[in-house]
């Protein structure tokens, strides 16, 4: 039996399928889940989620943080915002990234700058993830 993986966001179910391996970005670094993993709950950082299926094909998802739960070979990932790599519009992300960087330079407030920094790292993550599909 393989892993049953579901990636859920408030707006829709992004991914629902079987996988051989899941690689995610935790708070302390990347970790992988294989079958028969013990029950686990772990927060995710901003990073990409790699889902490898039985034929060793990779599916990449850009995740803006969230939480991962493993229980009885079922992997659930809950994220506020997640996007399949093939759905990412690279040109648009790049434009938004440039805008965010410009905005950040104009901000004086530290808290606002931090927020913008987070936005930038989310966009960078989307960009990196989106490029998997280009290759």
């Amino acid at each position, binding site marked *: 039996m393989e892993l049953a993986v579901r990636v*859920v*966001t*408030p*707006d*829709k*179910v992004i991914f629902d399928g079987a996988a051989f391996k899941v690689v995610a970005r*935790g*708070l*302390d670094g990347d*970790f992988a889940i294989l079958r028969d993993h*013990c*029950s*686990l*709950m*772990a*927060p*995710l950082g901003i990073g990409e989620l790699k889902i490898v299926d039985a034929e060793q094909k990779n599916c990449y998802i850009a995740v803006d*943080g*969230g*939480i991962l*739960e493993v*229980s009885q070979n079922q992997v*659930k990932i*809950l994220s*506020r*915002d997640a996007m399949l790599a093939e759905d990412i519009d690279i040109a648009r992300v790049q434009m938004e990234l440039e805008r965010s960087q410009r905005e950040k330079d104009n901000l004086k407030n530290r808290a606002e700058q931090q927020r913008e920094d987070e936005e930038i790292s989310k966009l960078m993550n989307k960009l990196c993830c989106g490029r998997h599909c280009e290759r």
Partner: protein
Amino acid sequence: MMESLREIKDRISATGSMSKITSAMQMVASAKLTKFEQKNKDFQEYLKTLEAMMSKLTVKRHPFFQPVNNPHIGYLVITSDRGLAGGYNNNVLKLLANKERPYNLYMLGSKGFEYAKSHGLTVENPDIFVPDDVIYHDIHTVIDQMLDDFRTGKISKIVAIYTRYVSKILQVPTEKQILPIEPTNQDKSMPYEMEPSEEDVLYTLLPQYLEGVLYGAVLTSKLSEGASRMNSMQNATDNAVDIIRDLQLIYNRARQAHITEEINEIIGGASAI
């Protein structure tokens, strides 16, 4: 007599075109409702998974569980952007009107802002519209602001006032305490490994859970708005049909009277010769 016949005719055609508009609006609302029902179903899965995860946590040490000593309660009122939705907005705002001041007010939807303006209330957050195809991203600024205000002690509670969707014919104006969280039952069926620590999981899960609950309130309100608009437009169309029927009757009677009068005049004229 001629004039009043014409007037009745005009009223019939005016009512007719109005009923066309309301029935079109009803159809639009019902199409949107179907779409929203799907969206809500997708979201319920997200929320249920979050709730299941919450119930597995054993540690409950977080500012979100602690009551704060401050008389200010934060109310989040969810209304619609547009009218013609029956009593939808009024019912929600009536709940707010009964609240004791002082409170801090947060609004979603422009009808709420109009109400606050006319009643001299201050709204903490900038104007936010809730479009029909609302996504989580649209409303997160208000939610972030409320959670920040709770953390800094500006408000002691967060209560959402919204309309809960039960079915197409029943929507209930509801208030629900969001913060501080009332402890729920614990699911002790299986021990979980928490990575890196249970506190870390809690600190990630809680904000996400709260946002989920609040977004859920927005979605169910949107559903109610759609249903309410659909029903009120249905009623308007039915009323228009009734009015047209009555007017038609009056028109026919007036026309008949007019004809009778003309015949009388002709006969009278003929017998005079």
